């Protein structure tokens, strides 16, 4: 992608960084979609902590954050990873609500997850998600190439047809994960960054007053056209 000056740091290191560079920090809501077992939680964990652990199936929603610094702005990704949300089909629109980016994940070693991903996409398209939402098709478990059931070509073709971005990753090895996050950061920033006013500003936990907090509906305000 040729953006060598960009870097991704974990949020803990972020305080110094933002002091050195007093750039604006914007909040980005990211949701992970896809069949269960494709590696959504593992990707979220890579994004949030750059770790890989064998995890149990997710219960409810897991919430992680990750700061990404671009040259002119910092993005605070608020990553929502859900468990079996495929079982809550009637409420999925709520899940998409206010998402700035949706990652549509399948497992390259299980064709049915690729098929399911297309159903997910139909669902997504049926909803009134803003056109600016960055949707990314992700073929995960790239390390399992000997068990591959979905070629990279197929993934790319689908992505092109539906106007999605596409990447193959491995949450296990970490391959393409950081790169993916950076690419997403760029697209989100382009589509709805400071100029477009699509993202709300993050003021950090220390500034948030508990009493006011009840009124904050962070994502509704910015994305419900």
């Amino acid at each position, binding site marked *: 992608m040729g953006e060598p000056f960009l870097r991704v740091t974990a949020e803990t290191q972020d305080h110094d960084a933002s002091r050195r560079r007093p750039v604006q920090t914007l909040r980005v*809501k990211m*949701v992970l979609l896809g069949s*269960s077992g494709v590696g959504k*939680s593992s990707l*979220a*964990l890579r994004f*949030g*902590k750059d770790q890989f*652990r064998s*995890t*149990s*199936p*997710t*219960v*409810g*929603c*897991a*919430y*992680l*954050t990750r700061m990404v610094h671009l040259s002119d702005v910092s993005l605070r990704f608020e*990553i*929502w*990873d*859900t*468990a*079996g*949300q*495929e*079982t*809550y*089909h*009637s*409420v*999925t629109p*709520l*899940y*998409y*609500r*206010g*998402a700035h980016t949706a990652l549509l994940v399948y497992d390259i070693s299980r064709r049915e997850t690729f098929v399911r991903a297309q159903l997910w996409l139909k669902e997504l398209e049926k909803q009134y998600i803003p056109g600016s939402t960055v949707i990314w098709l992700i073929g995960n478990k790239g390390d399992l190439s000997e068990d591959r059931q979905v070629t990279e070509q197929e993934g790319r073709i689908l992505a092109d047809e539906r106007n999605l971005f596409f990447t193959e990753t491995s949450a296990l090895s970490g391959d393409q994960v950081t790169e993916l996050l950076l690419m997403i950061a760029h697209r989100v920033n382009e589509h709805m960054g400071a100029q477009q006013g699509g993202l709300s500003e993050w003021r950090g*936990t220390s500034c*948030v007053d*508990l009493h006011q*907090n*009840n009124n*904050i*509906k*962070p*994502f509704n305000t910015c994305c419900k056209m």
Partner: protein
Amino acid sequence: MLSLHRDWDDIMEKEDHQQGEEQEVKICDSSSETLATSLSLLGNHMFPDSVQRNDSSDSQLSDLAAAVEPCLKSEPSDHVTRRENEGPENGVPTQPADTEPEDADVENEQSDSGDFVAEMLAKAKLEEQGIGLKGRSSPLLEAGNDESPALMSHRDEDVTAESWRQHRKHVFVLSEAGKPIYSRYGSEEALSSTMGVMMALVSFVQSGDNVIRSVYSDGHTVVFLQKGPLVLVCVSSSRQSEQQLRGELLYVYYQIISMLTQASISRIFEHKKNYDLRRLLAGSEKILDGLLNLVDSDPSFLLAAVHCLPLTCSLRDSLSQILQKAITPNLVFSILIAKNQLLTIVQEKTVIEDTRLEPADVHLLLNLIGASSAFQAGEIWTPICLPLFNPDCYFYAYISYLDPPDCTVCLLLLSTDKEAFYAVAECKRKIEEAMVTQKSLSLIAKAQSYSVSQVGVSDLRHFMYKPFDVPDHYRQLSQFTSPEMEAPYSSEEEKMRLLDLYRYMHSRIHSTSRPLKLIYHVAERETLLAWVTSKFELYTCFSPLVTKACAITAITKLLRWIKKEEDRLFIRYPAKYSTTPNPSKSSRGAKSDQQDSTDNGFLSLL
């Protein structure tokens, strides 16, 4: 030894004389005979290559009989004769001569283990509700436990293998229409015809206006529990009482309710009788697996009480205060947990006035946390129902570890507001901050369970003490205290053996037909004494050489020690806060306000 035991039982029974149900009723009415026959036919029909039974259980049984002798004598039991009469090949045609296994046939039924259940059911005597359920002792004791406690998944197990049958306790959940929902071992698909047999049995008995309750066969107890549209079945060789097994099934039911709510389950099945509930429970099997492992290994479930980590009174108070200060509207419970034990719990004032938090609800929460390592990755927001609090409503649980990467100290905040994630997460940050200032984490890290040696009674090896004497207006959670299990109970097998002894004592204390207040039980490798009064329930384990007099002295000493230490061993007074004008309206009062049966609401947060 023997007579000691008898005397003691007899003396103590004076306290509680309800010998009315002593007569044993053997049910051999024709309907259950017919049923047994029809089932054996069904079994043979469906599973032609019905195998011969496991012989290993026989040698186990004779060991057991020897060990159990003393306690058998005290009950007019027919156990020994039953064992002989119901030998493996006795009476039931399990092996039709004219069938051969056909390799080519890949029908599901072929590879099923329904024969195992059918065979068992066919041999069994049916005991139905409303008729005396006695007629057996519940001996256990040296029963081996070959099951490794490893947390590996049993989903992929071959259900035709002998090892599958040998599991000490199977648990199945199915819908009224016979659709498989959960099986502890082996996948539900592979077991679908087993489940079908069970369902046939249940509906057969239902049609006769009897609700099937349990079936005994040699070495196995089969217990049924029907709750709404769900049927739960336990097939156990653990020699626990029917009552205990049913209690465990109830925990399984509650854990399912905690994920889906009773209201939505009923609605789903009203709507579609043969709905496949696994669609909604996908990914939750591990939670049920974890629950069943806990039920087997943690006496909290047996005692229906929570275990809290011993802490100095001042530390516990300071933790409660930290929780009390970090509040937001609609927050109703704040719970701190370390090493899977309670540190403290703070409750909303009006909620606590309204109701007492049930230990079972806390157990389900602890299991949920323990069963999902996913929680360690970030902050969790999940809908959860506390079935004993209100089976039809969700709370929203915020779960986060306070000491990454160790992940031993866990904070659990429950709100009635599904949109409250950010507000509740903010409470966590406050708590975290206060705990840093007060160095609470390092103090918690030092807290440990205690050793029985601290009691200073030489022959005492272990005990479990559950007090009842908390004044009711405190609305205190039922708790118990128990030292670490130490040698000779350090191996998993020995731990389980001691727990089995406790379970046996417990079943006798709580027997519906012949409850006892005090049991002095001389087993082969230890002597146990169980005692229940209006103030407490106590189970103690002594070295085998202890005399009765010594045991009594020891217990006096133990009770004195507990009294002295109680501020440290128990959460004495439940802490409160006030966050909601009327939380009972939103959480407990009206039935759930959900329109959609599958909407558990939490996604609207996102």
